[in-house]
């Protein structure tokens, strides 16, 4: 009698345990469910690597554009070595399959075309990464934490992150007009409020330009920069031969308030423009504090 009772109890509870193990989240396609927390994870965007590091999980494969150095040192320190699966735009599907992952996390815009093929390799979580804002990235990080079965760890890390950002923001003067842009040979791209870096700077209390023609990033000319005339100009050079360096030789450059007050700073393009995520935002914040207090910005390794 008692044993039968135990059997019945177990037969009711055991499925409950396995259901409790199953994870259900919302991604860009709707509902996404995993039977059990994944052991082997492949990620196809750099912001996802950041989220995994925050949750304390190491991916076995990353689409790192064949350059592991692109990932922030702070993030790399948390991770074991991984296998490169090619570029973010065109990940090598055969390499991904050979790694036998339990979960693939892909960008909902870039990888929509290969979703079917990715799903045939492993369950694929589609989240927005490219063109995301700071707040959207934090939401994605929370989803990733949940899907990895590390919900509590991720929530703790997010709380710590918000605290740190608050601390940084309190050290900074409010409402400063800041322009951040990336400079290549032929063009200077302004990162407006709608871009990732722009939204991080806004969260820190800076006044960042609104999007021009509804584009989060836009290429602006020297005339437009002169019209905006920010208090601080922060530039990330993607190339040694860059247009902002040419502009600095131009006599019109001296008409910029920022140039006159020596408030032009150069930052690392990788950590400010390419990487997105919890670690990246904290890096940007600490760099910004250093810049605004005229301290040298520590170089990225």
């Amino acid at each position, binding site marked *: 009698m008692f044993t039968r009772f135990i059997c019945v109890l177990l037969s009711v509870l055991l499925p409950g345990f396995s259901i409790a193990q199953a994870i259900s989240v919302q991604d860009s396609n709707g509902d996404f469910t995993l039977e059990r927390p994944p052991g082997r994870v492949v990620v196809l965007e750099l912001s996802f690597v950041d989220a995994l590091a925050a949750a304390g999980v190491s991916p076995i494969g990353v689409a790192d554009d064949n350059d592991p150095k692109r990932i922030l040192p702070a993030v790399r320190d948390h991770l074991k070595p991984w296998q490169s699966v090619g570029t973010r735009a065109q990940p090598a599907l055969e390499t991904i399959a050979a790694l036998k992952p339990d979960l693939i996390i892909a960008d909902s815009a870039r990888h929509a075309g290969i979703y079917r093929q990715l799903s045939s390799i492993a369950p694929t979580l589609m989240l927005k990464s490219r063109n995301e804002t700071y707040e959207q990235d934090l939401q994605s990080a929370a989803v990733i934490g949940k899907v990895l079965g590390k919900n509590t760890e991720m929530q703790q890390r997010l709380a710590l992150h918000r605290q740190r950002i608050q601390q940084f923001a309190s050290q900074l003067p409010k409402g400063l007009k800041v322009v951040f842009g990336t400079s*290549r040979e*032929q063009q200077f791209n302004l990162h407006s409020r709608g871009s990732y870096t722009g939204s991080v700077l806004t969260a820190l209390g800076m006044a960042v330009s609104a999007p021009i023609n509804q584009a989060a990033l836009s*290429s602006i*000319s*020297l005339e*437009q920069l002169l019209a905006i005339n920010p208090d601080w100009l922060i530039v990330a050079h993607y190339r*040694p*031969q860059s247009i902002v360096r040419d502009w600095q030789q*131009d006599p*019109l450059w001296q008409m910029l308030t920022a140039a006159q007050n020596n408030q032009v700073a150069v930052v690392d393009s990788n950590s400010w423009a390419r990487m997105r995520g919890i670690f990246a935002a904290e890096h940007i914040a600490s760099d910004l504090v250093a810049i605004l207090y005229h301290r040298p910005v520590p170089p990225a390794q």
Partner: protein
Amino acid sequence: MMSGRPLIAWGGPLALLAGIFWLSLFSWSPVPIGSWQAISALLPGKVSVLSQALVLNLRLPRSLVAILLGASLAVAGCLLQTLTRNPLASPSLLGINAGASLAMVVTSAFDPSWVAGYSIALLAAMGGGLSWGVVMLLGRGWDTAGDRSRLILGGVAVSALCAALTRATLLLAEDHAWGIFHWLAGGIAHVRWREFWQLLPFSILLLPLAWLFASRLNLLQLSDDSARTLGIRLGQLRLLVNLVVVLLVGSCVSVAGPVAFLGLLVPHMARAWIGNDLRLMLPIGMLFGAVLMLLADLLARAVAFPAELPAGAMLALIGAPCFIWLVRRRT
């Protein structure tokens, strides 16, 4: 046809040019520039205000380069159409633009510091000359009695080839995608005094040279035999004119990227306005070319204000329907 009324024939385009030039100095600027400030900046005197500095350092060189560019490409188009006796010949259709762009992209992929100065203009000219030579050989451009469209088809094929190789270079070299794509559309937004001085020697030497040959080129419009009997050394003339065309186009591409449709449309406009005599057609072509280029640059600023589009893209949007109309009329 305006050949009988020289005042309107010449005064009209000149006035138009002056008007658009003045407009280009102050219109659609993110930093407001007054229409009088545009003029006063040009007069001698101290430049104190931002808007005047903008006019002197940004707007003026940009407009001047637009004038030189328009004139050079228009003349190149006139020469090509005369040389090949083909009303559809132009630097872009005959692959010169594509070849010059390919040369520039390949050199910039290997060593970006080369992308400036006279050496790059000559390199672009060489690239353009090479692709153009291929087109002429493939399309039997010398054989003007034969099938005219063979030349155009050859040009399209070679342009497509150069474009594909350009894209291949971009993919293999680095991820410049947006930047080079922007440049490939052709535009003068980045132009300063340096680019003006880079372009000026070529225009100053070659445009008058072309005009000096105008009377001999008039005879070339008839037929090879008539020209020969009148004592013209065809081979030499052709070589010289080809050289002039390739240098003009190369210098323009090195400054502004490949700009299309000017060389195609302006000769027809000039011919309709003033007739077939190259001695008159070339100068009018220069005026019309300058006006068209300035106009395209103006529109490029206006359409997405305060952002800017490349002027070449605007020219293409205007020029493509005109091209269609031209083909329908002329064939």
